[in-house]
């Protein structure tokens, strides 16, 4: 308490001073109100009704208004208000529906003045007219608002909201006759005090009850409302339609709002439940409160600024039976603890980074953003010179780093997404097609992956060689033939990909398989020392029939015939000669130890690729057909993981879809789901809706599949009565009329309805299309020149 600041402010001769302090009440408070001179505060609750004077160091109890022995519900206050014109006048709203006024000038102990028992239900709010001494307004749970003239015994006028309970009523400060009322059903009504028959204006402000409202103290057209939907909204009432100009999202339902005096954009709020703090928001910065008071240990029920013209003192009462005076100097400022940095990637690889200005050293290279996409750009938020408050001190700098145009281009992604075939054809065709697509976009690695997948998965017996566009000659039919394909110039970062390549040596023995990547890197080194200009390179010999046990193959279905496979030409233009290797067996021993020793020209199938990559050959003997494709699953899985890791989730997902069941169980569900969501997200950011939908449809993940089933309802309103149509989309239950008639055939449209946005006539899609072939005018005869796109 010692370190707390002491504040003194001068207000036109009146001096306010004090510190953060509190006092214990005997019971929970429901509401507080302050006297005009800012020296006294009244606290009201179910079991308390007292006046305290605010001294320099402490609160001093001045008067207990609960007198008499027997408890009366008339003392059980839901709300209390102190008149701002007459410091002897108070009014309370009782939970039993009674409105009581109190005159402190009475000589007797009992200060109770008048009793109005007109409301049938709890009165939620009472409000004095800001300038008129005798005018009191009340709003009750029974849905009525009543205006009392304190000189009379009964209410002068009753206003019926025609909707649910009234939660708050507030006289406007600008207009003498206007008051605002908020309702449990989310509406706000504006009334003219002279016209009790009908409200002037009504609008829906919140979803669920509107608990409170407050007129702005200076900028008088503004009304702030707080609701159960955890929002504080500021409405501009100057226009004919109430316009929402600010909205603050809080973390709990808003119980009270109070504009901060002398600060145009500041507003204090407290919540109804769970959250006990009081926040002061700058409505222009709705994400983080500009100040926060954390003293209370139970919900705050009443807040009031101590003086109409002093922004530094705030009083609050709470369910924890304490009354506090908060000093702004002692407020905690969440902004100090916040991390004012933000980072975001754009679709095209640009990176935006915002941080506190002080953190970013001024850099001479930095230029203001002028649209040049090559350089980092830089924004600075100018401080508003009119900003007078010490709390808005942060300005931040935004830097945007752009990738250069070529590498940042994502065209390949879009093209690939559009052209890939994912289903509807045999696996081999899909793979071929996709390999071709990838090839066409110069993505050779991906193209190869597809090709390899085709070989791995569709070489199992059934694929007839005729389909496959073999390029290999059958030099000698008796000999096992080999298939070759290539991979060279593997960027070092992509090394693990090489595990894909099936060399004979790898497939023969387990331990070599394990070492394959290192082996292959050796290979690469080897080649490079030989000179990488030489296209041919590296060969893996063929397989002997009697070595099949090394393959751990299924002996039950031996293929009697030899089959040959080669890469399809369209994906892999090869121009090479095949050199048969009649003595492959001799070299097998060598190769088993170290595959690259087998680089013997005489035995090689030499493949000469068009581009600058070279080949690593794989031979497909007849026995390889019998390799269960499961055997390759770990490798395919690694490939997919590799692509995903590289950021090419597109390839991973596409392969996943194309291979379907063959690979699905190899990759855990969560990873799959993650890939799918990333890919779908990307597709949607590129607005490739159709493709993203196709992906969703084809996915086998339950979580992804059901994305399509969410929010599939289309709500339509009847064109006649403007009400929602609940049962069917074409006939209105209320007005019993068909809502959507076809302008051409005059029948009800039950399916696709297309209409012109200019004249809103329309009809069956087919009919309208036919009509527009012959005429450009509206079929309804309204004379509009319809345009359909």
């Amino acid at each position, binding site marked *: 308490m010692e370190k707390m600041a002491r504040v003194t402010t001068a207000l036109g001769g009146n001096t306010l001073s004090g510190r953060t302090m509190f006092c214990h009440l005997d019971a929970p408070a429901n509401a507080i109100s302050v006297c005009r001179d800012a020296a006294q505060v009244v606290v009201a609750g179910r079991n308390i009704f007292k006046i305290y004077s605010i001294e320099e160091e402490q609160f001093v109890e001045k008067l207990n208004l609960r007198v008499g022995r027997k408890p009366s*519900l008339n003392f059980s206050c839901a709300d209390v208000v102190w008149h701002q014109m007459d410091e002897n006048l108070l009014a309370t709203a009782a939970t039993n529906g009674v409105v009581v006024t109190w005159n402190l000038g009475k000589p007797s102990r009992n200060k109770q003045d008048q009793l109005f028992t007109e409301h*049938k239900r709890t009165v939620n709010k009472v409000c004095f007219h800001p300038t008129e001494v005798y005018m009191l307004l009340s709003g009750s749970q029974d849905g009525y608002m009543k205006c009392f003239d304190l000189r009379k015994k009964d209410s002068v006028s009753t206003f019926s909201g025609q909707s649910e309970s009234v939660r708050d009523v507030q006289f406007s400060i600008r207009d003498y006759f206007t008051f605002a009322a908020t309702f449990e059903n989310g509406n706000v009504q504006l009334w003219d005090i002279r016209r009790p028959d009908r409200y002037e204006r009504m609008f829906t402000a919140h979803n669920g009850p509107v608990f409170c409202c407050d007129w702005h103290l200076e900028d008088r057209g503004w009304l702030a409302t707080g609701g*159960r939907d955890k929002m504080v909204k500021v409405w501009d009432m100057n226009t004919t339609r109430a316009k929402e100009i600010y909205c603050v999202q809080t973390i709990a339902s808003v119980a009270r709002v109070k504009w901060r005096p002398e600060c145009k954009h500041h507003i204090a709020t407290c919540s109804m439940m769970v959250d006990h703090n009081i926040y002061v928001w700058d409505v222009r910065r709705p994400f983080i409160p500009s100040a926060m008071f954390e003293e209370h240990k139970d*919900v705050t029920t009443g807040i009031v600024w101590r003086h109409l013209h002093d922004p530094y003192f705030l009083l609050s009462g709470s369910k924890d039976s304490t009354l506090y005076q908060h000093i702004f100097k002692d407020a905690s400022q969440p902004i100090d603890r916040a991390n004012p940095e933000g980072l975001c990637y754009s679709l095209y690889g640009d990176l935006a980074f915002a941080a506190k200005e002080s953190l970013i050293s001024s850099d001479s290279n930095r230029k203001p953003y002028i649209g040049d996409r090559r350089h980092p750009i830089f924004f600075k938020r100018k401080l508003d010179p009119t900003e007078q408050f010490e709390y808005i001190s942060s300005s931040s700098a935004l830097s945007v780093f752009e990738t250069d145009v070529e590498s940042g281009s994502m065209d390949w992604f879009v093209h690939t997404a559009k052209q890939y075939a994912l289903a509807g054809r045999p696996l081999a065709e899909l793979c071929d097609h996709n390999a071709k697509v990838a090839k066409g976009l110069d993505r050779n690695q991906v193209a190869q992956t597809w090709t390899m997948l085709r070989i791995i998965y569709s070489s199992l017996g059934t694929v007839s060689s005729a389909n496959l566009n073999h390029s290999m000659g059958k030099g000698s039919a008796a000999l096992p033939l080999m298939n070759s394909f290539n991979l060279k110039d593997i960027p070092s970062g992509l090394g693990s990909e090489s595990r894909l390549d099936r060399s004979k040596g790898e497939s023969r023995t387990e331990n070599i398989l394990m070492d394959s990547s290192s082996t292959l890197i050796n290979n690469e080194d080897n080649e490079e020392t030989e000179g990488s200009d030489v296209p041919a390179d590296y060969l893996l010999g063929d397989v002997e029939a009697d070595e099949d046990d090394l393959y751990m193959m299924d002996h039950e279905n031996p293929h009697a015939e030899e089959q040959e496979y080669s890469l399809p030409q369209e994906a892999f233009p090869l121009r090479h000669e095949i050199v048969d290797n009649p003595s492959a067996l001799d070299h097998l021993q060598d190769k088993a130890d170290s595959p690259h020793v087998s680089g013997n020209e005489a035995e090689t199938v030499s493949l000469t690729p068009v581009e600058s990559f070279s080949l690593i050959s794989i031979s497909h003997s007849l026995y390889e057909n019998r390799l269960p494709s499961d055997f390759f699953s770990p490798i395919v899985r690694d490939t997919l993981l590799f692509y995903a890791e590289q950021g090419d989730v597109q390839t991973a997902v596409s392969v996943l879809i194309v291979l379907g069941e063959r690979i699905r169980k190899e990759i855990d569900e969560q990873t799959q789901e993650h890939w799918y969501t990333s890919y779908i997200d990307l597709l949607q950011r590129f607005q490739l809706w159709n493709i993203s939908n196709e992906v969703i449809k084809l996915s086998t993940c339950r979580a992804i599949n059901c994305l399509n089933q969410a929010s599939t309802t289309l709500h339509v309103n009847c064109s006649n009565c403007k009400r929602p149509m*609940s049962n069917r989309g074409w006939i209105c239950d209320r007005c019993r009329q068909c809502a959507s008639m076809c302008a051409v055939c005059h029948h009800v449209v039950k399916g696709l309805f297309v209409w012109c946005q200019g004249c809103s006539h329309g009809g069956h899609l087919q009919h309208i299309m036919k009509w527009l072939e012959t005429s450009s005018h509206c079929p309804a005869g309204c004379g509009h020149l319809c345009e359909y796109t």
Partner: protein
Amino acid sequence: MLVAGSPCPLEEHRGCGTRRGGQETGIKVPRELAKGPSAFIPLAEIPREGAESGLRQLLIEAFVSAGRVDHVAMVMGLHPQYLSSFWKTQYLLLRMDGPLPYHKRHYIAIMAAARHQCSYLVRLHMGEFLQVGGSPAWLQGLHCAPQKLRNLNEINKLLAHRPWLVTKEHIEALLKPGEDSWSLAELVQALVLLTHYHSLASFVFGCGIKPEGDQDGGNGCWAPSPHSDSSPGSEDSMGGSGGRDAMQEVEMLMERMKLLQENQQEEEGVTQEEMETRFELEKTESLLVPPSDILDPSLQSHVRCFVEDPEFGYKDFTRRGEQAPPTFHAQDYTWEDHGFSLINRLYPDVGQLLDEKFQVVYNLTYNTIAMHCGVDTSMLRRAIWNYVHCVFGIRYDDYDYGEVNQLLERNLKIYIKTVACYPEKTTKQIYTQFWRHFKHSEKVHINLLLLEARMQAALLYALRAVTRYMT
């Protein structure tokens, strides 16, 4: 097949799965003992398939999502507006995303229903429990369920019979970190489930819902109450040709409502003390309930096993002088302000639906009373609602409890208190004895008010305890 055979709103479906179809193919189908879903309400009163399209749509929806239209839904179908809201809530509670796994939700439903010995709901959810993959071992009794669920027993007991005893210590005990501890979100779902099924049990007994056809032993196992269908007079009074008394009853009620409405202002003379006394009087009044003889222990064994401390029941508030729990002032913890805010925070969506459900039932009216039309029944509904809250110790400061006595005749009060506090003791007799000239749909309406008021009361106590725990 029997499930499909029970009234199904889809024409084509009914064709292939009706009871008749079953008999034709030679499969034995238990005969229905008596027609209709309720033992109290004649079948003719229940809306049939051809009903309004709105209701039909609703039942189809229910059928499609749950695989059956149970008797509860059929009786609630008398008030389609409410049924849709009720259905949405129950669907969310049982079948949509939530913190608790599905089988535990059904087990909690069983525990709750067992507290009121409601074998209908217990059987229904035993089936559902197995269907969602619950372990059959648990169904042998509470002692076979995991400790975590058994820990819920205490609060289940209190909420069912004396919700005012729920304190923040109970919440604390459940949430205390440990092996079998609950998370706050789980607990809130469990609390909503418990209160939902306690009050649904009230509805089941209050409307005399009969067991579903497929519940084993269901057909015919409904213990006939001493005054069953054959009882003379009951049919008469319902049939519309009721005696003079019944007619007079209605007229008197109308008269009183009019009087009360006109004399609102003149009530001022009543002192606060008097109001207090009136509330206490209603609260402590112990209404005589006919001794129940339905409780056949052998029949209830499958229900009993889910109950510990079966003797614990509703207890009338103590008379003046004795230590009584402090009155719960409705204004200090309302559903609209506090309950909703809390529940929406801990178990989103359900708050919205419950709010909607409470509003629908509170505002549901057809502006009719018995044979009169164009009547503002808001007073009557409020009296019933507040009376239910009153018997659970919740007081509205702004309500004159004298009205309850004026508007609710003694028989009705007996019925309401029985159904709300010890529903298992409901008999057909007390159902027929009150409001003898009223329509069955109106009696179901009362039951709906009762169900929701009771649920809200228990929920308010539970949520208040949670709030106190959190602060």
